[in-house]
Structures are given as structure tokens and as C-alpha cells.
């Protein structure tokens, strides 16, 4: 037996490189509904960005002479009781929906992630105070809390964002706190302390990136929920008020003429449904694609 066989040659071979990104996309687009969802959302974003180019009419200008028209080549979806072009209003409504959606989610997610990270990582009193505050907020149903806040703050897009944001913060905080608690138990966090890293560095560079994934999934599904909630508030007349173009208020306004012009309510309602559904599908897809248990299965 030859003893001279290269014993301690450097190990150059590692497992073949697996592209995380490729694997991620593969699982994500495995389901047809996710592809559909992504397509819908892509359209929605494009429509929102290029709204002025897509809408042929001013969505806010009344034109009583042409009120309550049926769909035609001039007005693809007809006009409402004030003679505004429904299609144009829908297009601008997409803008409102996305503004509220992204605004709320960004506000709530950032705040929730910071609070959850602090509560989970520091534990003790910090945890007790933050989490009890969140429990209190969670005691109210989201929509009721948002209603209350909007009633106090007044209507308008900014206030809707704040109200929905505060109402949804506990979800992010709880989730982040939970994942932080489990990530914190890993030996690599202990290893950070052993090599002398300060808590803040460990928290930001090691705990945060490992604990954030579930939040990404939550953000996606919450986008749908928030858009729905905004529509509900607007439908109830305390969110974004006419003449602002919001799907909720459009559906509400069209309600009076439901019998004669069902499209006035159904078009925005359908838009809401489609978008919420799309966000939920993409959220599901993301959850699967980010699930470590499915890693290596494809």
C-alpha cells in the first residue's frame, strides 16, 4: 500500500455549483397560476406607470352630457353617472391601488422587521414591551382598526397608508420576532459572538438576512390584502374619496346604478379580485420557492 499518496492536497473539488437563482425561478414558475399571477401583476405595474398614455380621457373630468353610457368604441367600459370614462378611471385606480399597497407594505414591513428583530434578538424587557404592544394592536380586527384610525386621521391617500400600515405592523413584527428567535439559536450566531462581533453587527448582517425570507412572502400576500382593505375603506366612503380614482369608491358609486349599468361596479370589483388573487398566487409560489425543505428537490 503506497503511503506516499497525496494525503493533504488542497481540496479543490466542491459539489457542483447549484445556481440558487435558477432553482428559485424553476420552483416559482412551476405552477401555471403563479405564471398567471406574475403576468397580471406585471400588467398592473405597467398600466399604473403608463396610465396617462393608456387612458384616453381625464379620469376626473365630469361630462354630464355623456353620463351613464354603455360600452362603445369611444368608451370601452362606458361612463359613470358623472360622465367620466370608466376605463380611464380603472387605469388610474391601478395607480392608487399600487400606491396604497406598496406604501402601506413598505411602511409596515420596515417598522415590523425592525421591531421584530429587536424583540427577538434582545429578548427580555424589549421583547415584552414590543410584543405586548403588538398584541394590543392585534386584538382589533385589521379593518376595524384601520377604520378607527382613518376616522381619526381623516380620509386621503396618506392617511389610508398610515392607518393600514399601523393595522398591519403586528403581523410583520410577530413573524420577524419568531424567525429571529429561531435563527438566533443557530451556532453561527454563537460563532459571531465568539469572534467578537458586536450585537448590532450580528443582528444586521447575520440574523436579518437569515430571518427575512418569510417576511418577503408575507409582504406579497399582504399587498393583496392591503389593496382589498383600501378598496373596502373606499367603498365605505372613508378611504379615498371621489373624485379620486380608487376601485373601492368606484364600485361604491356604481352601486346605485347596479340594476341598469352593472359594469360600473363589476369592472372595479373584478379588477380588485384579479389583483388580490394574483398577489396571493405569487405569494404562494414564493413561499414554495423559498422553503428550505424543498431545496434540492428540483
Amino acid at each position, binding site marked *: 500500500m503506497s503511503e506516499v499518496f497525496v494525503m493533504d492536497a488542497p481540496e479543490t473539488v466542491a459539489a457542483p455549483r447549484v445556481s440558487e437563482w435558477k432553482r428559485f425561478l424553476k420552483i416559482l414558475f412551476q405552477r401555471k397560476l403563479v405564471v398567471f399571477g406574475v403576468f397580471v401583476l406585471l400588467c398592473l405595474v405597467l398600466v399604473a406607470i403608463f396610465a396617462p398614455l393608456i387612458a384616453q380621457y381625464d379620469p376626473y373630468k365630469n361630462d354630464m352630457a355623456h353620463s351613464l353610457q354603455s360600452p362603445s368604441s369611444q368608451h370601452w367600459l362606458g361612463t359613470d353617472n358623472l360622465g367620466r370614462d370608466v376605463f380611464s378611471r380603472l387605469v388610474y385606480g391601478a395607480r392608487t391601488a399600487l400606491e396604497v399597497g406598496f406604501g402601506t407594505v413598505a411602511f409596515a414591513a420596515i417598522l415590523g422587521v425592525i421591531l421584530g428583530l429587536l424583540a427577538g434578538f434582545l429578548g427580555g424587557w424589549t421583547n415584552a414591551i414590543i410584543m405586548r404592544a403588538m398584541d394590543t394592536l392585534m386584538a382589533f380586527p385589521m379593518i376595524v382598526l384601520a377604520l378607527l384610525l382613518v376616522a381619526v386621521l381623516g380620509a386621503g391617500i396618506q392617511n389610508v397608508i398610515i392607518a393600514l400600515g399601523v393595522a398591519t405592523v403586528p403581523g410583520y413584527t410577530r413573524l420577524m420576532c419568531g424567525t429571529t428567535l429561531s435563527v438566533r439559536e443557530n451556532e453561527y450566531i454563537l460563532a459571531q459572538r465568539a469572534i467578537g462581533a458586536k450585537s448590532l*453587527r450580528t443582528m444586521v448582517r447575520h440574523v436579518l438576512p437569515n430571518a427575512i425570507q418569510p417576511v418577503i412572502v408575507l409582504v406579497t400576500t399582504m399587498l393583496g390584502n392591503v389593496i382589498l382593505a383600501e378598496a373596502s375603506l373606499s367603498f365605505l366612503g372613508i378611504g379615498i374619496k371621489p373624485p379620486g380614482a380608487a376601485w373601492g369608491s368606484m364600485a361604491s358609486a356604481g352601486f346605485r346604478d347596479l340594476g341598469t349599468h352593472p359594469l360600473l361596479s363589476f369592472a372595479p370589483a373584478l379588477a380588485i379580485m384579479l389583483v388580490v388573487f394574483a398577489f396571493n398566487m405569487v405569494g404562494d409560489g414564493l413561499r414554495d420557492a423559498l422553503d428550505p425543505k424543498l431545496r434540492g428537490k428540483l
Partner: protein
Amino acid sequence: MTSLPNVAQAPAATGSDETILEVQDLKMYFPITRGLLKRRVGDIKAVDGVSFKLRKGETLGLVGESGCGKTTVGRCLCRLYKPTAGQIWFNGKEISSLPEKEFRPLRSDISIIFQDPYGSLDPRQTAGSIVGEPLRIHKLVKSKAEYNERLESLFAKVGLASNLMPRYPHEFSGGQRQRIGIARALAGDPSLIICDEPVSALDVSIQAQIINLLMDLREGQSELTYIFIAHDLSVVKHISDRIAVMYLGRILEITTPEELYANPIHPYTRALLSAVCVPDPDIEASRARIVLEGEVPSPVNPPAGCSFHTRCPDAMPACRTTVPTLKQVGNDHEVACLAVTPGGG
């Protein structure tokens, strides 16, 4: 029972006579709390009075079964836990009660290798970044060029090609991951490394690679001191200059590997030795097994007196009341057992 062991001429332990670490009566109790107000209802006495000295360049093996407190001792030494009581003198400085802020600069001098090569590396960090982290934290390098140079030499030292630096932990095998962990432990140029079960999570054929690596690193740098924690007596015996046998938070016997194998004195050590199988059928056929009765008592409520008396085949009435202390019984051989008369040395 052996009254006086024949004093074996143990080979002088490697390393200088300079003491790098001295541990005195180290205790680590973890409180058990209950209820909303975190009322303390008891303690897990993980480490209950451990003392030893370590010379520069020496390797001390800590061996014992799960729950004996060996990992806790290791974690106290690198201050991942703040000891409940006792002193730790590192290079003449008492470190057990230093505030974290003052201890932090020392963290590059005392490092730790963890057991689990899967859990101890951040999955979202590249191998290079993991190994370089201590350099960045303690600002041990002045320039990007020096940083890269140091990284390359660290990778070379542990036998990993430097083109593997941009890879993520999941792309490596268990043995390779453990090499990354070792490189990280070496980054701060430490004088003391706590090796906490560094091979027990690895495949049999890989263990030898890592053991050899650790021994080669020690060869290359005579000042490097290890505390090697493991439950596998064969591995500990292979790498250590001295071995401390732990049971329920205390050291029962501490001596050289040769002496431990040829002349174990404490009944627990003898049982532990006899429980290990040697891969040699003829030798196995000639070795008798001492099978211990019962199980390890709970560290929440350890027995009074000698903690081993509940399972000891040679227990005497006095063992139930008196806590034995480590006594010199021979050249570099200390035992904590009431049945042993001190002598030798």
C-alpha cells in the same frame, strides 16, 4: 482497588513550562425559571468546581458523556457564558469577570471550533467572508491586499483551494465545512483554540483528515494550545497531551493519555475505557467490560458527596457525604476519589 499506581515514566508533555491558562473552581449554573415573573426554582449545575492548568503549546482533552459539562467549560473559557463563580486566568489576566467590552479584544486570541459544521456557518455568507470576518471585526489588516493575502494563506493552511472562497456553505461537504470553521478560528492568530467536538459530526473516513489537520497546525506553531472536547475517548487520546475525565460537572481524573490507558484509577474512568471498542477482534476478546448500572443523575439535583457514588461499584459510605478533591497520585496524574491514597509525584 489500586492503592498506589506504578509511576509510569510518562514522556514529557510537549510545550513550554509557561502557563497559558489556569482555571480555578469554575462553576456555571444555569437557572431554571418558572412562571411569568421568571422565578428561579433551581439550577442546572452544568459545571460545579472545575480546576486545571494548561501549559503553552499543550493540548488538553476534555472527555465525558453528554451532560457532563465539557462543552460548558469550553464555552466559559471563551466567554460565550459568563461563569457563575471561579476564576479563569489567561496569560496572567483574570478574564472570567471582565465586562464584554474589555474582553472583546481577547476574542481573537481565544477562538472556538464548533461541533456542527452545518450549523456553525452562516448559510448566506461566502466561505471567504466567513473566514475573513474576524479580520474585519478586529481590524487586523490594513489594506484590501493584505486582507486577501491573509485569506489565501488561511485557506491554504486548512487545505482548501482559494478558488472556493466565493462559494456558499451548502456547496461544501461536511469535512470541507469543518475546514472553513477551522480557518475562521485561525484567522485572529489565536494562542488558544477550544475544539468542541470538531469531528464527531463527520463520517469515519473524514474524521482522520480533520484530526491530522489540527495536529499539523499545532506542529507548525509550537505556541498553539488546544482544549479538545470530545466524547470519543479514542480520538481524545490520539490528540491530547493530557486528558481530563469529566462527570456531572467535575473533573474526576486528569493525566497523560498513556497513564490513563495503562493505569486508570477512578472507577468511572475504568468503566469509560472499557466501554470503548477497539477495532481489533483479538484485543477485544481479551478486554473485559465494566458495565455501569443505572444512568447519569440529573445535574439539577446531583448526588451529595462524590457525584459518581450512585453508580460506583466500589462506593463506600463516606462517598455519600464527602466530596473528593483532585489528589496527586503519580507523575502528572491526579484523581478525585476517596478510595485512593495520595502519593507519588
